[in-house]
């Protein structure tokens, strides 16, 4: 986007960000991820979303304007907004995940902005792990490419509930409906190979703003919502598992004060399902049973609690449970297992070592583990399974893990919180692998 265009935009304020003191109690939070490379217009798109929602401030614009001029750039380089590290600005690339924030009167948005090249697969996986939605950019001139495949596969692997495919640069194909229809048909065919739930497809020009925030007058044939419209309206209430009650105990609260002498509360964040006072619960791994006495949230009690609330539970009986244990319902147990398969993304330059010991974190539980077997590796550009068992940085593979103590897992597809693990190198303490339980 050129500076002139931005100034023109400034005069035509497309969204009135009215954060009047009444509206904020109804606002929802949507986290979405974008992946993209230098030329596919990702920075322009983010810049436009931020700019049109008044989330770029004058001093930020001034600062990147000065920096752009100093670098001899012809246009104001909006990537300088998101590329926060010196090395990124110097090299003109996004290295790490950057988090950006903007809001409309309806929703607050968190963008996990990630680089798109294959050597940054781990960063894309990181950005995708917390996202409700993913924006996948397709260049209208090129259609579905390896990069589209890679980004879609990662969205599917990380089970991002909502996918928004933006066919960008429509201005460069004369806003032709045939181009859009062809790409849409191509994507419809391709998505059959993936496990994607909710997909919207929108033709846009990030550079000119068509269908980003304002409906495009250049594409009257498109009857769907603008990108902003989709972001503001996709239903996110069902993104958490509301069926399988899971409460990993995070911290035991014992005030030891005169007033609360016998208080013993189990603090944690609900990882799935719904809990109510009076519910029968069973503690894992001990299998001891009790009932929920109260659900405490600061100085109030709640009639029920659900994911992802942070609350404190009290129980009818004084049973021995502590951090790393999990409260569940007796008629709905997770898999209690010491050996299971995961899809693993390797995050470290040091390759995966079979049969050596790693630390493993699952919800609030710490155990040790070995990786027993690499079953196959995935070519993320075409999703083919490879008979290659050497797993290095950015590789995605299917592996069998054996743990020293049982963990209480669900499939990642059923629950993104209780189906996720991280693997840590005990020598360096670095997080070296992340896994999604099959």
């Amino acid at each position, binding site marked *: 986007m050129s500076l002139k265009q931005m100034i023109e935009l400034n005069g035509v304020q497309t969204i009135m960000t*009215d954060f009047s003191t009444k509206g904020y109690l109804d606002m929802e939070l949507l986290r979405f991820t974008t992946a993209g490379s230098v030329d596919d217009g990702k920075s322009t798109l983010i810049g436009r979303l931020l700019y049109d929602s008044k989330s770029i401030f004058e001093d930020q614009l001034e600062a990147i304007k000065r920096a752009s001029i100093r670098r001899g750039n012809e246009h104001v380089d909006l990537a300088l907004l998101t590329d*926060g590290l010196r090395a990124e600005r110097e090299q003109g690339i996004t290295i790490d995940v950057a988090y950006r924030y903007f809001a409309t009167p309806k929703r607050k948005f968190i963008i996990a902005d990630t680089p798109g090249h294959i050597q940054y697969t781990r960063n894309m996986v990181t950005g995708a792990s917390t996202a409700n939605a993913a924006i996948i950019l397709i260049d209208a001139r090129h259609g579905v490419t390896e990069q589209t495949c890679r980004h879609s596969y990662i969205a599917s692997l990380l089970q991002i509930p909502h996918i928004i495919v933006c066919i960008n640069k429509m201005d460069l194909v004369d806003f032709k409906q045939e181009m859009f229809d062809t790409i849409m048909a191509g994507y419809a065919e391709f998505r059959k190979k993936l496990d994607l739930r909710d997909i919207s497809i929108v033709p846009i020009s990030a550079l000119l703003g068509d269908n980003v925030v304002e409906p495009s007058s250049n594409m009257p044939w498109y009857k769907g919502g603008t990108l902003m419209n989709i972001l503001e309206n996709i239903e996110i209430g069902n993104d958490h598992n509301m069926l399988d009650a899971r409460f990993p105990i995070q911290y035991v609260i014992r*005030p030891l004060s005169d007033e609360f002498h016998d208080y013993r509360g189990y603090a944690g964040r609900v990882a799935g399902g719904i809990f109510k006072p009076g519910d029968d619960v069973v503690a894992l791994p001990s299998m001891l049973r009790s009932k929920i006495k109260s659900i405490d949230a600061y100085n109030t009690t709640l009639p029920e609690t659900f994911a992802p*609330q942070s609350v404190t539970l009290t129980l009818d009986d004084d049973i021995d449970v502590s*951090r790393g244990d999990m409260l569940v319902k007796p008629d709905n147990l997770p898999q209690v297992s010491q050996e299971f398969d995961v899809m693993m993304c390797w995050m470290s330059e040091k390759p995966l070592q079979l049969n050596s010991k790693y630390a493993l974190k699952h919800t609030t539980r710490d155990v040790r583990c070995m990786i027993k077997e690499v079953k196959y590796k995935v070519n993320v550009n075409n999703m083919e399974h490879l008979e290659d068992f050497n797993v290095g940085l950015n590789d995605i593979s299917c592996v069998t893990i054996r743990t020293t103590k049982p963990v209480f897992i669900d499939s990642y597809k059923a629950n993104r919180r209780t189906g996720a693990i991280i693997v840590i190198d005990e020598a360096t303490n670095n997080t070296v692998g992340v896994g999604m339980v099959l």
Partner: protein
Amino acid sequence: MKSKYNLTHLEELEYESIYVIREVAAQFERPVLLFSGGKDSIVMTHLAVKAFYPAKLPFPLLHIDTGHNFEETIVYRDELVNKIGAVLYVGSVQESINKGRVVEETGVNASRNILQTTTLLDTIEKYKFDAAMGGGRRDEEKARAKERFFSHRDEFGQWDPKNQRPELWNIFNGRKNPGEHFRVFPISNWTEMDVWQYIMKENIDLPNLYFTHQREVFYRDGQWLAKAPFMKLKPSESYEMKTVRCRTIGDISCTGLTLSTANSIEDIIDEIAATRITERGGRADDQRSEAAMEDRKKEGYF
């Protein structure tokens, strides 16, 4: 259609932050909460109180005192500590200067902002704190946008932004070697607007500095700065009485004041919604260079 299981953005943020704060208490032996007297650390303290209620905070507060504070900040700090029954540690920049650990900057733009880093790291080492929670937010500054919730610091207290640990889902890896520590940012995902909306929703008390008041100020490099005994005027500058408020609170030497008549949280929210300058736009410490924050953070700044 919204069901009763849809949360608002402030609820989501609160639950996330409480989770992070509890994770700190669970994973570390000697955590501490960095308290500056600014709104972000006030909100963080409020969240911490909620996280452990009815128990008291399982960690102390730490204030790095530049000696150049607004008096109201110190009064507020002491009242809050008293009210919630917390333990307070103070790391003194003046003491670091007296001991010769740091040398005071000179000249009209002298600030103790950078000196705080040494005092902070010395205090962390002295009390063997292994995790220091800060009120930094990713929306504040571009280097902070790259920060993890759990941010590893080596034995020199330094941050290596290019070599950060991956952080996925809500699984936080706080493992470390002896002598290393973590900085943890529980309100990473909050924006300035979220903080103010939450302050309103929770009816949180703030230092009066955030609301409109009369103060002697002078104008320098595009911002109003407060009169104080240690602030030196250039020949061209002079004091004027203005109606102002603080948008952020740091030490006096680098806190730009906003001309404002905002007298309530509602007024402040309206004012922020209309403003076109970021809150750190008023912070002289950030304007020193394009990578001022990144450089300071690498050394161990907040």
